[in-house]
């Protein structure tokens, strides 16, 4: 039997919990606000870039909701639990990558596992599990890391990166490698070791040429000289630069960008949506957007600095810095500063999995934030 007192107590309990949650939320409000603002800008830009396609905007909005829920859930999981699960999660995601590689035999780009309900990209999972693994590995060891530790880390990072690059998905592979490398960097890897690694990388770069796909070589050549084939491979870069450049200081106005509206700009809802934004909002809009991204990265690094332990610090730091890589690679691509690599503009490009995995990453940051040291040093 449920008596009135029990009901009253339950209600009181709920109210009490709600009040506590409001007084000391498990979320970092500035970061949450910035993300909400970014998502809003993203949906508005998408609405324009899709030529007022409500269906696309609603789809994307639903993904944001899904990602948001995931973020809230992860935020409730203490970092210590995450740390304990890390090796298992890492191995599971590596296994999934291998499944994809096997199933994808003989087909073109194969990145998905069809789960009937939704398509799932294991490489998105790796974006989270790899920095976790790097942080987990470094957490237990003396910092800054030495050569032996670095060799082990190179294996941990290289294995999934190679599998992803073979899909082929160079953009994601790059992001995955970056998040691992950032963890090592934040762990305090000696500057001279960084110098040696960079020099080795630079000298080994030409060796990659024979292993590249034809389209990847084309992209690289086109990046070096887009006008050599303006209607073919150079089209993307040229039209994107025209879109950006014709925007000027203040842009052509929302839904007034001719480059995207008349479809001169290819992939204007996904990889090249930043060009649409630049065309319609101009340099002022671009700088404000970049400022917003810098704020998010900075806030992430601030959360990392205040984290409770090395694992949390490195994880939060590398997630934040990887976020920057998205912006840099995408922005560099649409302005012709970097070669064409399929990296979305975070929370603005249309496409589900990256939005969800990004928001999940921010869930980790939120969790680290809410379980931070209570007393500042």
């Amino acid at each position: 039997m449920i008596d009135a007192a029990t009901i009253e107590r339950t209600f009181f309990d709920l109210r009490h919990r709600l009040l506590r949650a409001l007084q000391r939320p498990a979320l970092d409000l500035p970061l949450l606000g910035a993300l909400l603002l970014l998502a809003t800008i993203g949906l508005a830009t998408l609405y324009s870039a899709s030529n007022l396609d409500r269906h696309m905007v609603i789809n994307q909005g639903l993904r944001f909701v899904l990602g948001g829920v995931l973020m809230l859930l992860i935020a409730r999981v203490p970092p210590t639990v995450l740390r304990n699960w890390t090796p298992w999660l890492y191995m599971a995601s590596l296994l999934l990558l291998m499944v994809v590689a096997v199933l994808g035999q003989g087909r073109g780009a194969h990145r998905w596992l069809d789960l009937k309900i939704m398509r799932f990209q294991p490489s998105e999972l790796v974006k989270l599990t790899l920095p976790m693994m790097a942080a987990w590995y470094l957490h237990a060891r003396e910092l800054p890391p030495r050569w032996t530790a670095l060799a082990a880390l190179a294996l941990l990072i290289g294995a999934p990166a190679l599998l992803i690059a073979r899909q082929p998905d160079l953009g994601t592979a790059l992001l995955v490698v970056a998040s691992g490398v950032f963890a090592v960097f934040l762990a305090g890897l000696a500057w001279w070791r960084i110098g040696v690694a960079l020099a080795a990388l630079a000298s080994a770069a030409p060796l990659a040429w024979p292993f590249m796909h034809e389209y990847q070589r084309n992209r690289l050549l086109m990046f070096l000289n887009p006008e050599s084939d303006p209607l073919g491979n150079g089209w993307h870069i040229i039209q994107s630069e025209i879109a950006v450049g014709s925007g000027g200081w203040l842009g052509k106005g929302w839904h007034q960008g001719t480059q995207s509206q008349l479809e001169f700009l290819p992939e204007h809802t996904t990889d090249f949506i930043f060009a649409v934004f630049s065309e319609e909002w101009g340099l002022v809009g671009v700088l404000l957007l970049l400022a917003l991204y810098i704020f998010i990265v900075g806030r992430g690094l601030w959360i990392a600095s205040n984290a409770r332990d090395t694992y949390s610090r490195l994880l939060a730091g590398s997630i934040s810095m990887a976020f920057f890589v998205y912006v840099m690679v995408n922005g560099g691509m649409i302005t012709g500063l970097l070669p064409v690599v399929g990296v979305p503009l975070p929370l603005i490009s249309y496409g589900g999995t990256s939005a969800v995995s990004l928001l999940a990453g921010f869930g980790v940051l939120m969790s680290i934030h809410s379980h931070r040291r209570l007393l500042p040093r």
Partner: protein
Amino acid sequence: MNKRARIKDARHESALFRTRAIAGFLLIVACLSLLGARFFYLQVTRHDEFSSRSDSNRISIRRIVPSRGLIFDRNGVLLADNTAAFRLEVVPEQVGRMDAMLDALSAVVPLSEDDIQRFNALRRTKRPFDSVPLRLKLSEDEIARFSVERWRFPGVDVVPYLTRSYPLGEEFAHVVGYVGRIDVNEASRLDADLYAGTTHVGKTGIERSYEAQLHGKPGYEQVEVNADKRVQRSIKREAPSPGSNLYLTIDSRLQKVAEAAFAGRAGAAVAIDPRNGEVLAMVSVPSYDTNLFVNGINQIDYSTLLNAEDRPLLNRALAGGYLPGSTIKPYVGLAGLELGIRKPEDTVLSTGEFFIPGDTKRAYRDDQRWGHGRVDLREAIAQSVNTYFYGMALEMGIDRFSVALAKFGFGAPTGIDLLGESSGVLPSREWKRGRFNQAWYPGETVIAGIGQGAWVVTPLQLGQAVSIIAARGVRHQPHLLRAVQEGINTDPQPVPLPTPAPGIVHNPANWTAVEQGMINVVNTPSGTAHGMGDGFPYVIAGKTGTAERFSRTDEEWTSIGSSPIQRHQVLFECFAPADDARIAVVVALEAGRSGAHDAAPIARAILDAWARYDDVPREVTSR
């Protein structure tokens, strides 16, 4: 080593992280600043360049082809019209493999070898994003079949256009002419701006000589296009100015009657208003249907026309060469009188034979074996007495002869507003030296006096000459364009006539004598064309001509058999009313018994038609 010996220093690690986080953040800010600088470079420094490239992406200029001017006869009867049709056009830029596409397309819409050749040639003169016509005048069936398969052929489209049609194509083939597809030579000659989008150009006749007036000025439209070059909206439009409508001097009723009167016999007729040089009718038989040429004549039809023995493509009125024969006599007579060699009433004895003084070997004959007896100029013209003119020409001498006859326009193009006119041959020392590098013999002067020998005239030249006689010595430039209408809402403006040169007749009595001779040809019992003017409301003055096509000594003379029809070129020239001429007519037939028997009835038919319609007001009427 011993891991336990080294204790993790949390405080140190945290500090280390803090420095690294700050370094990382600075690195990030630096990178994003670089990106921002790149945006500044594109959006501010190079803004103008990209802005114009963005505009040239989206804005494309389309030429709007002007509609070609219409052609009417003097009474507003339509001779050249624009009618709606459909054609296939290709934008080469949007076609992947052209040869494969053409192969596949020809299975849907038949393409001739000709179509493809023409298309490929034309394509080279255009820019890759210009639409190039491939097949003209699609049938409804072809349009329907293509529409179903359209998706297979990006860059290929059915486009409506105006095509030329000639309601009286056959009757006016040699006057109005026709338009045809612009070929490679023309494409390089024509003004690319003016002819952007135009597919046809005047090839012959009025269509050719008045191309500039008929074509008009193209308009343009600035349109916004998307990446597939599909038009989204119009930004700015300037309407084309259509070509001018032309009103010809021709009366299509006369033209039809003249054409019919030939009944298919090869020859030509010209009717001119001697008061102003307006060409009322100009016929060349056989003719052809000009509509065949507009959308590309097929090879079989073309070679049939080209190789036909009676050469329908030849404009006989303009370029057909005829021996004038006796039709030259009124001019020789008038020239002789004007030069004072004879007085009109002086008589000459015709005995049937004429000898050059001092040379009795070669006899120059009259038509009648025993001669015509004693004749003055009037009778010499009426009965076509050779002897009279043999003597007159001989006394004139070839030099004065050719100068005097040049005044009637012989030996030179008339300057009519059509291309392709030939100048004929006026016998002269210079001509012979130039042509054969030989000296002139007096005997040649003798036969020149009766229109034989070196003479070659075109029917139009003869028409001009008889018009000069009809107008008492005044020459008016023969012409075909009567009025020009610019724009639909304006009245046709008459084309001003050049002031004629002073008359070539100094003594009116000389002219009267020649005119009387020509009246007698038709109206006295001894006249060679006696009876051809019976029942006509006006007095007709005329002259017959029956020229031998071959010398009697030639083998051909005997080989063609006994039919006299094959032996002669027959001509008739006349004007009416004799005292105040309003029409002059020349008829030339390539074969016939005599001028009176075969050519005169055709001239009479034209005159009858003229008399029937003459009371119709002469103002140009617009449609």
